[in-house]
């Protein structure tokens, strides 16, 4: 797998996001109430949370549970080590972490 380089980014194009996810269409009332104060205070809401909140029954609910299991309930590695693995992997794939 090729390692990503920051030079490969097209700086004239900002990262995209689907409008259905950005607008929170389909979110339940409780989810909207959770997001609203954060958006009002910070001006935005973390996009990974929005992705995982949109149509949770298809993907987000199960992925979050797996993430919780892998990142917080591991018996072999401590949280710091796991965060380091995740940060390194994200760096290799040129993802924000």
């Amino acid at each position: 797998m090729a390692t990503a380089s920051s030079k490969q980014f097209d700086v004239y194009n900002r990262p995209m996001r689907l409008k259905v996810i950005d607008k929170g269409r389909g979110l339940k009332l409780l989810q909207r109430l959770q997001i609203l104060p954060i958006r009002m205070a910070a001006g935005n809401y973390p996009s990974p949370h929005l992705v995982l909140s949109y149509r949770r029954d298809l993907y987000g609910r199960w992925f979050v549970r797996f993430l919780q299991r892998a990142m917080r309930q591991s018996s072999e590695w401590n949280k710091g080590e796991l965060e380091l693995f995740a940060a390194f992997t994200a760096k290799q794939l040129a993802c924000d972490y």
Partner: protein
Amino acid sequence: MKKNGKMKQKQEGTAPADRHPMWRHVDALPELGMIGTLLERLFSVEGATTPAERRVVEERAACLNGSDRSMNSSELSPVVAKYVDKVAVEAYKVLDRDIDAMRDAGLSEDYIHEVTLAATTGASLARLERGLTILEEVERGNSQF
């Protein structure tokens, strides 16, 4: 984990060729149980795409990330195939214009969302599978590592 047990039974009932290769690891490692649930949901819930389409996308993304599964992408339109390839191999290069190309082809945002989920799942699970296979080989003493 009662739910996982039911899902495992359901997967075991499918033909071996249709069984996702990740299930071999899920069966062996209870920690991966939620991946089984995720796969079951991804390949059964109806949406803008059919579960079969999502399966094709997931297989294509997995093959591009080193999986030895057979790739049957003839059902995918060229614009979708191009997008899946980009998400699977170099997701950091996805831009607004890639999404616009999908929209211009008449695809809904829900369709794009589901294709993206299937592609990312295929790509990530193929990498996980490769890692777990290496661990198995190390345990058996057959690895160069």
